[in-house]
């Protein structure tokens, strides 16, 4: 017989089960509240970080114009072949296909990748500046080339006429040994930075600010589509307006082409440099398109050392252009007057040694001594004067110190004084004969061409010391305004006007008289003043110098020309200086 069923379940136990179930649900709700309301902000940002992948957009580097707004340095589109190291490792067959398309062996492509690789997931450049044909070929077959890609990356282009890579500089990917210098400033490996010249000096203005593109990615980091989720545009670098005149610069390069040396033309009122040549130069474009080892060797091992900026780093004996120091010192200290005469017999004997002059000048006053560049006159002056007073004026005229030109790596030369000689030869080991060498710019004296042009400017302005510079104005992309940087302009005092006048008349005769050593520089109508120098040196033929300036109204330009082993100042340096000034005179008028 089937028993009438009964429900014996204890209702309190059911109540207990229900209570526990509700409590457990409450725990879950509390947990959700904690995650979704209290910790919401944290997880929200984590989710954003999860979904977005940031890629850099490099900022267009600032353009560089000459003083009239002609483009000196600009950017042109370029395409690089890049590979993703992690992907191409999975698809090694891509290498052979790329090699066939580019006509370059696999090994050298792989070598390039190793050199530019920055980790497995970032594109590494294997070939820069590929031509249109290769570009199209790769893009058409891109589906068969897993791991490879063509990347757009503008390169620097320099005005073709100008080969002064040592003045303008060049850009190149940061060299591994330099990376520590750049890392803290936010650079990444593989970024292009300015090396040498203006590109290096004004790197901070030119580089601009990197932008970023955020793309949505899935869990393995693969972008979902090509659209940017968010984009922060890069800030282009500032544009620079240089003091250089590109036409004159090109002309100056041509004038210096045959020689090793330097030529500078500068506005002596304000220090603006119109043309600056260190010869031989090099074509900065060579570097921007990715230098091959052979190209690098040809530049770096060239016997004429084009990488060496002679204008600011070349330290040479000054030769006769140094003589005005003794003249100024003598006049100021009252050792000589304009009328004081010394006899030049061609040879000066001191302590059993003979010190020579170029000619037998006979009796000479100061004016003639400058114009003829008579050594013996100045031997007498320094012996009367003593070395310390001479040194005082040597320093005053700016030798032995940096001019402050806005180029990297300037050297100060040597303006020897008592301390220097003590260090060099030992106390009391040097004597008056040493002075005789120094007074004519020989011996331990070393100056740079940029110091020489500043010296000419000081003489031209009767004691105003400009700061030579190449940057005229900055066009800031942030404020969209032109800013003119200010450069220090010093005045030398304690030198009387009469002294300056005497020096000037000597320099006038040196150029404008038909018996001056610098007459080969003369350009009728430009009212030129100048001084030649022929510097003996142990390496071979004498170096040729010329410093000078025009006193024409509204034509305040000083010039310095230095030619390595150029024999005599009047032979090589002076004609170049004259041509340069003349060229500028006509260019300015046109």
């Amino acid at each position, binding site marked *: 017989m089937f028993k009438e*069923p*009964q*429900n*014996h*379940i*204890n*209702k309190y*136990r*059911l109540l*207990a*089960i*229900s209570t526990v*179930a*509700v409590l*457990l*649900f409450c*725990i*879950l*709700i509390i*947990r*959700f*509240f904690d*995650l*979704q*309301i209290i*910790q*919401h902000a*944290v*997880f*929200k940002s*984590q*989710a*954003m970080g*999860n*979904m977005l992948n940031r890629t850099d957009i490099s900022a267009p580097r600032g353009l560089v114009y000459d003083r009239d707004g002609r483009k000196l340095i600009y950017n042109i589109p370029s395409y690089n072949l890049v590979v993703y190291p992690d992907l191409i490792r999975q698809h090694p067959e891509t290498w052979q296909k790329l090699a066939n398309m580019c006509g370059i062996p696999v090994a050298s492509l792989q070598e390039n990748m190793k050199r530019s690789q920055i980790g497995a997931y970032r594109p590494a450049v294997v070939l820069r500046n590929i031509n249109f044909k290769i570009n199209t070929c790769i893009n058409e077959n891109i589906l068969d080339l897993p791991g490879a890609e063509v990347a757009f990356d503008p390169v620097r282009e320099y005005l073709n006429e100008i080969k002064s890579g040592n003045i303008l500089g060049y850009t190149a990917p940061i060299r591994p040994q330099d990376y520590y210098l750049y890392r803290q400033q936010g650079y990444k490996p593989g970024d292009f930075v300015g090396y040498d010249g203006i590109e290096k000096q004004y790197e901070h203005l030119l580089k601009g600010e990197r932008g970023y593109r955020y793309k*949505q*990615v*899935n*869990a*393995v980091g693969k972008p*979902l*589509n090509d659209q940017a989720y968010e984009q922060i545009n890069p800030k282009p670098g500032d544009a620079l307006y240089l003091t250089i005149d590109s036409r004159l610069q090109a002309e100056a390069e041509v004038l210096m082409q045959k020689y090793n040396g330097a030529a500078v033309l500068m506005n002596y009122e304000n220090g603006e440099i119109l043309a600056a040549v260190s010869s031989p130069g090099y074509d900065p474009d060579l570097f921007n398109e990715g230098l091959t080892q052979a190209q690098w060797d040809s530049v770096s091992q060239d016997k004429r050392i084009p990488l060496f900026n002679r204008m600011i780093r070349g330290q040479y004996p000054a030769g006769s252009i140094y003589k005005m120091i003794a003249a100024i010192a003598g006049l100021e200290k009252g050792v000589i007057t304009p009328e004081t005469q010394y006899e030049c017999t061609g040879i000066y004997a001191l302590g059993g040694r003979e010190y020579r002059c170029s000619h037998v000048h006979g009796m000479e006053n100061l004016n003639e001594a400058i114009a003829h560049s008579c050594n013996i006159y100045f031997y007498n002056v320094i012996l009367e004067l003593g070395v310390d007073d001479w040194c005082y004026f040597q320093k005053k005229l700016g030798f032995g110190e940096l001019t402050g030109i806005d180029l990297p790596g300037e050297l100060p030369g040597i303006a020897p004084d008592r301390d220097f000689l003590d260090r060099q030869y030992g106390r009391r080991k040097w004597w008056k004969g040493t002075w005789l060498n120094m007074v004519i710019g020989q011996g331990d004296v070393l100056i740079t061409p940029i110091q020489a042009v500043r010296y000419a400017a000081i003489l031209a302005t009767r004691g105003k010391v400009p700061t030579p510079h190449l940057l005229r104005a900055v066009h800031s992309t942030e404020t969209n305004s032109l800013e003119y940087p200010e450069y220090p302009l010093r005045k030398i005092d304690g030198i009387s006007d009469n002294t300056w006048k005497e020096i000037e008349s000597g320099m006038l005769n040196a150029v404008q008289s038909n018996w001056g050593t610098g007459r080969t520089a003369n350009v009728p109508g430009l009212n030129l003043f100048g001084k030649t120098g022929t510097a003996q040196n142990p390496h071979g033929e004498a170096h040729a110098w010329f410093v000078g300036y025009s006193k024409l109204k509204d034509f305040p330009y000083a010039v310095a020309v230095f030619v390595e082993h150029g024999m005599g100042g009047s032979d090589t340096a002076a004609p170049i200086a004259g041509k340069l000034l003349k060229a500028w005179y006509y260019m300015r008028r046109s």
Partner: protein
Amino acid sequence: MRFKDFFSLKFSQIDISTLVLVFILSAFGLVAIYSASYFVGSESNMQYFWKQMLGLVSGVLMLIILFSLRKSFLLSYAEVLYLIGIGLLIIPFILSLIGFGTSRWINLGIFQIQPSEYMKFLLIIMLAKVFSENRRSTDNFGYVFYPLLILLLPAGLVFIQPDLGTTLIYIVVFSVMLFASGYRLYYIFLLLAPFITMLAAFNSWVFLIWGLLLALVIFLNNKNVIFSVGMFLGNVLVGVLTPYFWSVIKPYQQQRILTMLNPRLDPMGAGYQVIQSQIAIGSGGLHGKGFLQGTQSHLNFLPEQHTDFIFSVVSEEFGFIGISVILFIYCFLIIRWLGMARTAKSTFSAMLIIGGTAALLAHILINVGMTVGLLPVTGKPLPFISYGGSFLMTSFGLVGLVLNGNAE
């Protein structure tokens, strides 16, 4: 035998509000699966959606079958059905031993069956029968031995598959039914004691305190000295042996056990899932990101997002508000079913309801607890919402069992 001997179609007695709420949850599930299988940048994949629809239809069929089975038939054939279930559990195990397939599924060509799922019904029916028959002896400790044997047989087989999650479900179902049967709390405590002892054994102070507590409880509850002392010493023995066994096994074996208990120790595997799941939930906020707007799920950061981690998708897109609604519906259903157990016409019916409810509750808690990082990742889906036809049939079947218990 005729159809009527097995089935009675008592649709008038079906609980409408249960059906409505279950269908609301299923609809939520369809929405969530559509979203979870919708990837940005690729064609919307409707395949999962339609398969889930098909699963729902099968689930409803399953519900009707289990709802309609006569209780007299269940009572008479409980043991037979149970043994068939055990047999099916052993078959794939043997097949895997001789190199055919994995040990969880039986492959029947066009579809696969997972015996451990059907075992849930059979276990509940079997236990319901046992617990409703042995009414008078719940004051006896030995009362538990027979039901425990019925549990351990399938639980052991599932555990060595290894499927920790399902084992856990069986244990929860058994425990809740045992508790509801009126078995003495003290005995339940004694059954749990060895497990607590094992955990306590790793710290001498905790072990000492636990030992004192155990001694006190045993002293207060039992007059049989031999039984009491035996129980206590047994626990002490377990406590002493546990650290010994732990130190004897190899480090990689230790690691395997730890990872099984807490998969978050494996950072690239389950740990990654839990972290991504929490990011998805947390980033949803109060309102959620909106339908199809979840970044975690649509950008494929969430693994298993349409099955085990479906709740993360819901949390991300519908926020705290959406989650609260769903959890409230679950909670409401559980309480309503437990209420049915109180008013059921027989202990057997009540036990069917309690067993089915316990199984569903266990699934919900294990899945959601895993999703929010409170419980280990055991890979258990969420009833009515997770993708998967097989599990939908289980879930609806359990509802059918509950509603069957509720009907006369």
